[in-house]
C-alpha cells in the first residue's frame, strides 16, 4: 500500500491516516491477545477445578484418616484400602535415588562447563547435554527396564534385583533430570561476578578452593532452587517409573523390589478405560491432586528460596 506513495504526488489521501481504524485494530488485537494470555489462567483454573471436584467426590466415600494413615493401597481389590502413603513413599524413594545421581553429577558438570571447559569445548558440550533433556521419557523407560536392570543383575547378582525395581528406575530418573539440574546450576554459577573469584585468587586460593569456598557458596541459592526443581520433575516423571519400577504398591524402602509410584498408578488405572462416576475414576483424581500439591509446593518453595536467599551483586 504505502510503497506506491510519492511525496508530492497526487494521491494525498494516503497521507491522511485513518486513525479511528488504527485504534479499532489496536483494540481488537489487544483484546484477542489478552484473551490468549488469559487462557493460561483458565488452564490453571481448569486443573484446580477438575482435581478438586473429583477429589471431593472421592473423600465423600473414603475418609481422610484412611487416605493418610492406611498402610496399604489396594483400590482395585474387592476390599479396597487407600493408604496414599504407599504411593508417596515409592515416589520419593525413586526420586531420592534419582537425586543421588543428578545432584553430584549435575553440580560437577555445571562447574566443569562454567569454570573449566574452554569456550570451544563448551560450545558443543552444552548442546550435547541438552539432547539428553530432549529424549522422551518412554525411551528412558525402555532403557531402564531393558538395559539397566539386566545390566545390574548381571554385574551385581548379589543384589537380588527383581525384574521391576526402584533402583533402575531411580538411576535412570537421575540421568533424565541431570540436564535441568546442570543447566540451572550453571546459570547460577555463571551469575557469580568475577570480582569474587579474583579476590579469592588474590588471597592465594587455588582454583579448586575458589570454586568450592567462594563460587559455589555464592551460587548456593540458585543451585538449591535447581535441585528442588529437579525433585519436582522426578516426582512428576511417569514413564520411567511405570515401566521400570513396576505396578506393585508396597510400603517399602527397599529399592530392589517392585513398587508403584503415584504417577504409575494413574497410568495403570487410566490406561484401563475407567468409567466416569465410579470410585476408581475419583481415585485417579485424588492421587492426581496429591501429586499436584506436592509438585506445586516444591515449585513455590524453589521460587521463594531464590528470592529469599539470592545474593545480589552490584
Amino acid at each position, binding site marked *: 500500500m504505502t510503497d506506491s506513495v510519492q511525496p508530492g504526488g497526487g494521491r494525498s489521501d494516503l497521507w491522511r491516516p485513518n486513525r479511528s481504524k488504527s485504534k479499532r485494530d489496536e483494540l481488537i488485537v489487544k483484546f484477542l491477545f489478552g484473551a490468549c494470555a488469559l487462557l493460561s489462567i483458565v488452564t490453571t483454573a481448569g486443573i484446580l477445578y477438575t482435581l478438586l471436584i473429583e477429589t471431593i467426590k472421592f473423600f465423600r466415600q473414603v475418609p481422610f484418616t484412611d487416605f493418610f494413615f492406611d498402610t496399604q493401597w489396594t483400590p482395585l481389590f474387592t476390599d479396597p484400602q487407600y493408604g496414599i502413603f504407599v504411593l508417596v513413599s515409592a515416589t520419593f524413594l525413586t526420586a531420592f535415588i534419582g537425586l543421588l545421581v543428578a545432584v553430584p553429577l549435575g553440580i*560437577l558438570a555445571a562447574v566443569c562447563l562454567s569454570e573449566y571447559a574452554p569456550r570451544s569445548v563448551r560450545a558443543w558440550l552444552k548442546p550435547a547435554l541438552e539432547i539428553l533433556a530432549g529424549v522422551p521419557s518412554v525411551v528412558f523407560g525402555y532403557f531402564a527396564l531393558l*538395559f539397566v536392570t539386566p545390566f545390574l543383575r548381571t554385574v551385581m547378582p548379589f543384589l537380588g534385583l527383581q525384574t521391576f525395581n526402584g533402583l533402575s528406575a531411580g538411576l535412570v530418573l537421575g540421568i533424565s533430570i541431570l540436564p535441568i539440574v546442570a543447566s540451572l546450576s550453571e546459570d547460577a554459577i555463571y551469575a557469580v561476578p568475577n570480582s569474587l573469584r579474583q579476590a579469592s585468587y588474590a588471597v592465594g586460593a587455588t582454583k579448586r578452593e575458589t570454586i568450592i569456598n567462594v563460587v559455589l557458596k555464592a551460587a548456593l541459592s540458585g543451585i538449591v532452587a535447581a535441585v528442588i526443581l529437579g525433585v519436582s520433575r522426578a516426582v512428576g516423571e511417569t514413564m520411567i517409573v511405570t*515401566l521400570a519400577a513396576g505396578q506393585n504398591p508396597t510400603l517399602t524402602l527397599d529399592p530392589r523390589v517392585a513398587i508403584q509410584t503415584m504417577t504409575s498408578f494413574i497410568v495403570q488405572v487410566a490406561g484401563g478405560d475407567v468409567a466416569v462416576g465410579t470410585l476408581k475414576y475419583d481415585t485417579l483424581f485424588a492421587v492426581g491432586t496429591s501429586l499436584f500439591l506436592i509438585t506445586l509446593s516444591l515449585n513455590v518453595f524453589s521460587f521463594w528460596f531464590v528470592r529469599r536467599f539470592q545474593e545480589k551483586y552490584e
Partner: protein
Amino acid sequence: MTTSDPNALPAKPPGGIDIAQGDFEPNLKRRYQYDNIFRIITWIATFIGLIVLAILILDTFLDGLPRLTGNFLTSFPSRRPEQAGIASSLVGTLWLLGITALFAFPIGVGAGIYLQEFASDNWFTRTLEINISNLAAVPSIIYGLLGLAMFVQLLGAITQGRSLLSGGLTLALLILPVIIVSTRESLKAVPDSLRLAGMALGSTRWQTVWSHVLPQAIPGIMTGTIIALSRAIGETAPLIVIGAQTFVAFLPNNPFSSFSAMPIQIYNWTSRPQEEFHTNAAAGIIVLLVVLLLMNGTAIYIRNRFQKQSL
C-alpha cells in the same frame, strides 16, 4: 616451626589459625594435586551423562535396526511381533503434531505478544507471569487428567471423546507455557529502538509490532515452537490418561478418530514380556528419535539461517 615464647603469639583460638600447626604453610604442591583431581572429577561427571546417552542410543540401535524394514513402517499393530508395525501410530503422531501446532502456535504467540508488547506492569500481569511459570512446572500427567475431565468428558460432544482432537488439545495446553516463554524471549531480543522508531512515525503499537518487531522475532519464535512441539510428540503419559488406544488397525483420517501414537506404541511393546516385542519397541524408538531429530534439526537450521541474515 615452634615458638618457645608463648607471649610472642596470641593464644590459639579454638578452631582458628595456628601457625605452629603449619596453617600458614602454603603447601602448594599438595593443593595443586587436589586441584587436578577435582578438575578431572568434574570432567568425568560431565561425560557420564553423555556416555549414558551414547549407550542408550547404541543399545537401541543395535536392538532395533535389524527390525527396521519397509513393512515395519507400513504395517499395523499385530499379535505376531514380526508382522507388527507402526503405521497407525506414526500417522496418529503426525495428526497430533498438526492439531497441537494449530492451537498452541497462534494462542501461545498471541499470549507472548500480549505480555511482552501490550501489557502494562501491574498486579494482573505479574499474576499471569507467575501463573505461566507455575504451569510450566506442572507434571504432564496432570494435564492428562485435565484433558480427561475437560475434553474427553465435559466437551465429549464436540471432541467425540477419546479422539485425536482431545489428545491434540491436551498437548497444546501442555506446551503453551513453553511457547509463550520463548515468544517473549524472542521479542525481548528485538532492540527497543525499532519500537521507538515505529511509534515516532505515528504508527500504533500493533502496527509497529506487526510490521517491524515480529519479522525480527519470527525465527526465534519458530525455533521455540518447534522445540516445544518436539517435546509434545514425545509425551506418553497424558495420552495414556486421556485414552489413546494401543491397538489401532486403521489410519486415522479425521480429528475425531480414536488413535494411537508412537510413544504409546513403544510403551505397549516395551511392557510386554516377549523379547520380540522389545525389538519392535527399539525399532519404534529409532523412528521416534529420527522424527525428533528432524524437527530439532529444522529448528536449528531456522535459527542459524536467520541469525546470519539479520546481521
